[in-house]
């Protein structure tokens, strides 16, 4: 397995894991208060919708010339990855609150307890829509990463498998723990994913624009090292600055 293939698999797995932890918190918050049938149908519907997007867009993108695809995917990954990296640095340096799954779980549970009960199509509509939207919105980021990683490297199946493995793992963990996965180091994982997205964005973006990397695929490790070191320095510098801490949602 080549370096970029391993990193692709790792990126899809980690991105999926961290987003699924957040989706799990939303579903649990609704399910424990309003029962499991409607939220689980919401989860299943959203999962089918996400799989349909991957199945439709993935093969369609193989028709685009690889240089064009890498340029577009590189640009999108850079814009998207830099958002993740920027937020992770702001959180690590204390300028933005860390995401707190226990607090999010309590908030979702309180909202579910006070929301009005409305039956539609035999479902508790509130529970269904909250679970559906939660999984769909968190999952869209994963779908974006799977499609961009997979199509630019011609390994869509592998990227999808990495993401699916994380879904299975997080679901199992959620069933075993029967609560939000507070101990998952979300910021660290988001840091790693942001670093991978930005590095792949640099690599493919430059290739798509016509540049050739010295050492070819191995230079990807150099880009990761360079951006990792830069991020570490930026966290250290920002930690020394006085900050009024923003709540997690303000910059997240």
């Amino acid at each position, binding site marked *: 397995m080549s370096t970029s293939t391993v990193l692709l698999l790792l990126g899809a797995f980690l991105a999926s894991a961290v987003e699924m932890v957040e989706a799990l918190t939303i579903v649990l918050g609704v399910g424990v208060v309003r029962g499991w049938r409607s939220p689980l149908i919401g989860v299943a519907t959203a999962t089918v919708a996400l799989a349909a997007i991957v199945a439709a867009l993935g093969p369609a993108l193989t028709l685009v010339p690889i240089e064009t695809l890498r*340029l577009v995917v*590189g*640009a*999108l990954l*850079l*814009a*998207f990855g*830099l*958002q993740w*990296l*920027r937020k992770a*640095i*702001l959180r690590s340096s204390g*300028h933005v609150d860390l995401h707190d799954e226990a607090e999010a779980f309590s908030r979702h549970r309180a909202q579910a307890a006070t929301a009005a009960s409305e039956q539609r199509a035999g479902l508790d509509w509130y529970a269904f829509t909250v679970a559906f939207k939660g999984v769909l919105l968190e999952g*869209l*980021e994963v779908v*974006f990463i799977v499609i961009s990683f997979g199509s630019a490297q011609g390994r869509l199946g592998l990227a999808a498998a990495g993401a699916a493995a994380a879904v299975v793992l997080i679901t199992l963990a959620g069933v075993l723990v029967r609560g939000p996965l507070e101990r998952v180091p979300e910021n660290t994982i988001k840091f790693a994913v942001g670093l991978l997205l*930005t590095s792949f*964005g*640099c690599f493919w*973006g*430059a290739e*798509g*624009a*016509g*540049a*050739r*990397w*010295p050492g070819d695929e191995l*230079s990807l490790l150099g*880009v990761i090292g*360079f*951006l990792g070191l*830069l*991020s570490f320095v*930026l966290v250290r510098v*920002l930690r020394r*600055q006085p*900050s*009024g*801490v*923003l709540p997690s949602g303000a*910059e997240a």
Partner: protein
Amino acid sequence: MRYLVRFARFWWDFVVGDDWTVAAGVAVSLGLTAALAHNDVNAWWLLPLAVAFLLAFSLWRATRRV
């Protein structure tokens, strides 16, 4: 119309996010890399340097606002 605006805003937030200067800087850097490649200059080094600058600049803007 309202749905179209919401749809556009969703994708804007999704891809561009909190700081539009990062996305704009990425587009300019890719354009420069392509222009240099077109003139036989292998500018593989440009994007990592541009990313370093854009990230530092965006963080400086964010922490200045706080």
